C-alpha cells in the first residue's frame, strides 16, 4: 500500500523542472537554429582582411571541379584542360576568348589550297621549363605518341595521315581528306607539345613550355603555379597563382567572402547576387560558354516523341525565358544545337517561340486529348538539380502533357538513357565545343537520323575554307532545330565573382580553358 501511495504522491506533483523542460527545449532548439543560421552569415561576412595585401605577387583562385592527377594525356575531365593548357603545357596553336584559333608555339602556318597539307612554323628559342629546347622533333614525337598510344582526345585529329618535321622549326601534317576543325582540335589536348627527353612522373609533375610551372599539387584540393623563368614570352603578371577547389558551393562562397580566394569561377548566378550588390568590394562578370542544356527527345520509332508534331508541341510549350529567369537571368536562350562561340552559329530562337496554343493544337493533331493525354517521362541525372524538372512539368502541364520527372544517379542515366536509349525525354548539359557532329550520328542516344543533316555536316567538316564550313554547319543546325530533334533549353553562361582589384581573368569558357598569364591582383588599400 505504501508503494501505491508514494507513487500516487509522486505523479501528482511531477516537479517543476519536468513540466517546464519541454518548452525550454523547444525554445532552445529554435534559438540555436536561428543562431546557427545567422552566425554562419555573420562569420562569413566578417572576413575580408585575411589576405596579406601588399605586394600582390600572388593571387588565389577558387574553382569547382578538381583534377585527381596531372596526367593530361591519360586522364579525362575538363579540370585538367582548364588548369594546364595554356598555363603549363602549350600547343602549336591556342584559342582566344572567342574560341578562335591563334598562334602559340607555331608563330604562323600555311594550309595548302586542297586543305590536305598544314605547315607550321615554330617560334625560335622556345625551351621547356627544364631547359630543354623545344624543336620540331618534340612536336612530331608528341603527335606520334598521341596517335600510337591513343592518348585522350587522339580521335579529335581526324583524317591525319603523316606527321613530319622539316628542319628544327617546321612541322608538316598531311591529311587524307580535308578537315575543317583540325586547327581547333590542335588547340586542345591533341595539340600539346611534350618534351621528348624529359623524365618526370606525369601524375604529379608537369614539364611544359608554358608561362607557369606546377610548384605544388594536392589532388582534389589545390595547385600552386609559379612563373616559369625560362618562358619564351613575357613573364606572367602574377608570379604565383594558387588554385583551390571547392566542390561545395557554399564553401566556395564563404572562401570568397573571407578573402581566402580573390576569384571564384564558376559561381551560381543567384549565389553571386550579394557580391553583385557589394560593388565597393567585388566585381561579378558573366562570360560566354558552349554549355548547351539539351532536352533530348527520343527520335527512334516506338516512342511518342518519334512523332515530329509531339516534339514541336514540346518546343512550343516550353517558356525558355522563364527557365532562364528562375536561374538568375544570366543564361542565354539557345534555339539550336550550335552555341554562339562555335562555327555555324545562327540565332534560331525565333523558330519555336513559346506558344501554348500552338502546342495544344499540335498535340490534338497528333491524336492526344484531355481524356487521352500525352504521358512522358523525363529522365536526368541528379547533378542538374530538381528545379528544371519541376519547371518543365509545370510548363508542359499547361498544354496538357503529363510529365513524370525521374531524377536519377548519373550512372543510372548513363545506362538507361545513353546506352540503352530507354527514355522519352532526357536532360544533359552538353558542354563541349565543336560537338555538333553528334547530330549526324544516328546511333547517338537521340536516335536522330536525317540524311540531309549527315550530308551537310560531312560537307562542312571537309570544307577547305571556314566560310563554307560555317555555312554548311549552320544549314544543318537549322534543319536539326526545325525538325525539333530536341529542345535547347538554354546556353549556360559562366558567372565569375572577383575581388575588385583583380584584372585580366578570362571570363569566356573559363571552365575548360583558363590562361592565367594576364591575371593581376591589386589589393585594396
Amino acid at each position, binding site marked *: 500500500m505504501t508503494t501505491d501511495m508514494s507513487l500516487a504522491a509522486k505523479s501528482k506533483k511531477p516537479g517543476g523542472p519536468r513540466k517546464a523542460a519541454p518548452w525550454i527545449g523547444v525554445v532552445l532548439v529554435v534559438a540555436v537554429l536561428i543562431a546557427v543560421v545567422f552566425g554562419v552569415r555573420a562569420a562569413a561576412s566578417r572576413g575580408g582582411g585575411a589576405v596579406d595585401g601588399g605586394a600582390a605577387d600572388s593571387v588565389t583562385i577558387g574553382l569547382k571541379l578538381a583534377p585527381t592527377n596531372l596526367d593530361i594525356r591519360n586522364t579525362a575531365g575538363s579540370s585538367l584542360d582548364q588548369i594546364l593548357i595554356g598555363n603549363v603545357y602549350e600547343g602549336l596553336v591556342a584559342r582566344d576568348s572567342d574560341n578562335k584559333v591563334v598562334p602559340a608555339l607555331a608563330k604562323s602556318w600555311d594550309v595548302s589550297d586542297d586543305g590536305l597539307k598544314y605547315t607550321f612554323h615554330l617560334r625560335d628559342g622556345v625551351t621547356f621549363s627544364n631547359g630543354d629546347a623545344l624543336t620540331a622533333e618534340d612536336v612530331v614525337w608528341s603527335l606520334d605518341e598521341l596517335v600510337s598510344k591513343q592518348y585522350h582526345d587522339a580521335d579529335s585529329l581526324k583524317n591525319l595521315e603523316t606527321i613530319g618535321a622539316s628542319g628544327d622549326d617546321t612541322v608538316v601534317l598531311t591529311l587524307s581528306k580535308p578537315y575543317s576543325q583540325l586547327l581547333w582540335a590542335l588547340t586542345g589536348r591533341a595539340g600539346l607539345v611534350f618534351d621528348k627527353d624529359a623524365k618526370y612522373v606525369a601524375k604529379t609533375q608537369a614539364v611544359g613550355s608554358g608561362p607557369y610551372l606546377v610548384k605544388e599539387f594536392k589532388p582534389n584540393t589545390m595547385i600552386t603555379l609559379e612563373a616559369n623563368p625560362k618562358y619564351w614570352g613575357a613573364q606572367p603578371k602574377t608570379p604565383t597563382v594558387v588554385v583551390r577547389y571547392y566542390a561545395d558551393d*557554399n564553401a566556395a562562397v564563404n572562401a570568397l567572402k573571407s578573402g581566402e580566394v580573390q576569384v571564384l569561377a564558376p559561381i551560381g548566378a*543567384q549565389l553571386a547576387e550579394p557580391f553583385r550588390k557589394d560593388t565597393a568590394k567585388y566585381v561579378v562578370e558573366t562570360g560566354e560558354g558552349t554549355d548547351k542544356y539539351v532536352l533530348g527527345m527520343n527520335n527512334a520509332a516506338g516512342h511518342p516523341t518519334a512523332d515530329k508534331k509531339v516534339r514541336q508541341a514540346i518546343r512550343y510549350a516550353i517558356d525558355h525565358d522563364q527557365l532562364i529567369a528562375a536561374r538568375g537571368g544570366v543564361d542565354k536562350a539557345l534555339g539550336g544545337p550550335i552555341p554562339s562561340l562555335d562555327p555555324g552559329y545562327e540565332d534560331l530562337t525565333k523558330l519555336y517561340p513559346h506558344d501554348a496554343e500552338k502546342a495544344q493544337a499540335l498535340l490534338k493533331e497528333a491524336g492526344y486529348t484531355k481524356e487521352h493525354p500525352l504521358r512522358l517521362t523525363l529522365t536526368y541525372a541528379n547533378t542538374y538539380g530538381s528545379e528544371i524538372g519541376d519547371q518543365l512539368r509545370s510548363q508542359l502541364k499547361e498544354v496538357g502533357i503529363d510529365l513524370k520527372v525521374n531524377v*536519377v544517379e548519373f550512372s543510372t542515366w548513363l545506362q538507361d538513357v545513353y546506352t540503352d536509349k530507354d527514355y522519352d525525354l532526357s536532360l544533359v548539359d552538353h558542354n563541349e565545343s565543336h560537338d555538333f557532329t553528334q547530330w549526324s550520328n544516328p546511333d547517338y542516344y537521340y536516335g536522330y537520323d536525317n540524311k540531309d543533316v549527315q550530308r551537310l555536316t560531312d560537307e562542312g567538316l571537309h570544307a577547305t575554307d571556314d566560310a563554307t564550313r560555317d555555312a554548311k554547319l549552320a544549314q544543318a543546325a537549322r534543319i536539326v532545330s526545325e525538325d525539333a530533334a530536341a529542345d535547347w533549353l538554354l546556353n549556360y553562361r559562366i558567372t565569375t565573382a572577383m575581388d575588385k582589384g583583380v584584372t585580366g581573368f578570362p571570363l569566356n569558357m573559363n571552365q575548360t580553358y583558363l590562361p592565367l598569364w594576364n591575371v593581376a591582383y591589386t589589393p585594396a588599400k
Partner: protein
Amino acid sequence: MNRPDRRRVPEAPARIAAEHGPRGRLRRAGVVVASMWAHGAGRFALVTLGLWILVSLVSLFWTPRSLWETNGYAVWAKPSADHWLGTDGVGADVFSWLMAGSRTDLVIVALTVLVALAIGLLLVAAMTSRAAALAHGSVVLIDALISIPTVLIALMLAVPLGASVAVIVLACGFGYGLNLARVARPSAMLAARSMYVESARADGASAMRVFATHIVPNVMPTLVVQCSLSAGTAVLAEAGLTYLGVGVPSGVPSWGHSLSTSVRFINIYPLTVLWPGLLVTVVVVALNLFGDALREAADPLTNPRLRGDDGHRRR
C-alpha cells in the same frame, strides 16, 4: 486499503482493459488523453500532432496554391499575402509544399513505426523463445546488425529501389526495429521468467498466447516510448535521406524535399530553409514528448487517475 495485492503486478493494466471490453477501453483512452493534456509537455505534443494530422488531411483537398504552379519570374520571393511563407527556387509556394509535405511525412512515420514494431515484436518473441538456440542466436544477431548505420542500409536499398519512400521506411523500420527489440528485452525476459507465465504455461497456454497476453503487455510501455522516439527519428531520417537523394523522389512533396532544395541558398535566402527546419524541429520534439507523456499517462503505476477510476468502478 484492502485492495488485492496483484494490482501492483506489472501485467495488470492489460488485464483490466481486457476485462472491461471496448467501452472500458474507450473510457481508459479518454482518461489517458485527459492526463496527457494536464501536463504541458503532453499538451504540446497532442496539439502539435493533432495539427499535423489535420493539416495532412486538409492538404489532400486544399492547399493555398497548386503545388505544380511555378513562376520563373518570382523565385525565392519573401513572405507575402500571395505566398504566406514565400516561394522556392522555381517560384512554387513554400507553404503549400510544406502542407503537402506533412502528409508524406505522416505516412512515412506511420509506416516506419509499423515496420519497426513488427520487426521489434518478432525479435522479442524470438529472444523470449524457450528454444535456447533461437533465444541466444537472436540476441547475437541483433547485436551484430545494430552496428550497421541506418544511412548505409538506406544507401544500399537505394541501389535496387532508387529514391523512394520504401527506402526510408525499410531502412528506418529495420534499424529502429532492432533497437526496439534490444530496449524491450529486459522487461520481456523478466515477464517470460515470471510466475504467472509459468502458471499460464502449466495451464496449457500456447507459446503464442503467452507472448500475446503476458509478454507484449509488459513491454508495451517501453515500446510506446521507443516507437515515438523512432517516429521522431524517422522524420529526421526522411529529411536527411531526401537530402542525400535516396529518400523521397523529386516531385513528391516532403519536408526533406523543401529543406534540400533550399539549403544550397542558405546564405542568401535563409528564411526558406528556416521554415522546413523549424517544422521538422517542432514535430520531432512533439513526437519525443508524446512518447514520454503517453507512457506516464497510460501506466497505472504512474497515473493515479487510471487506478482511481478503475478501483472506483470495481467496487
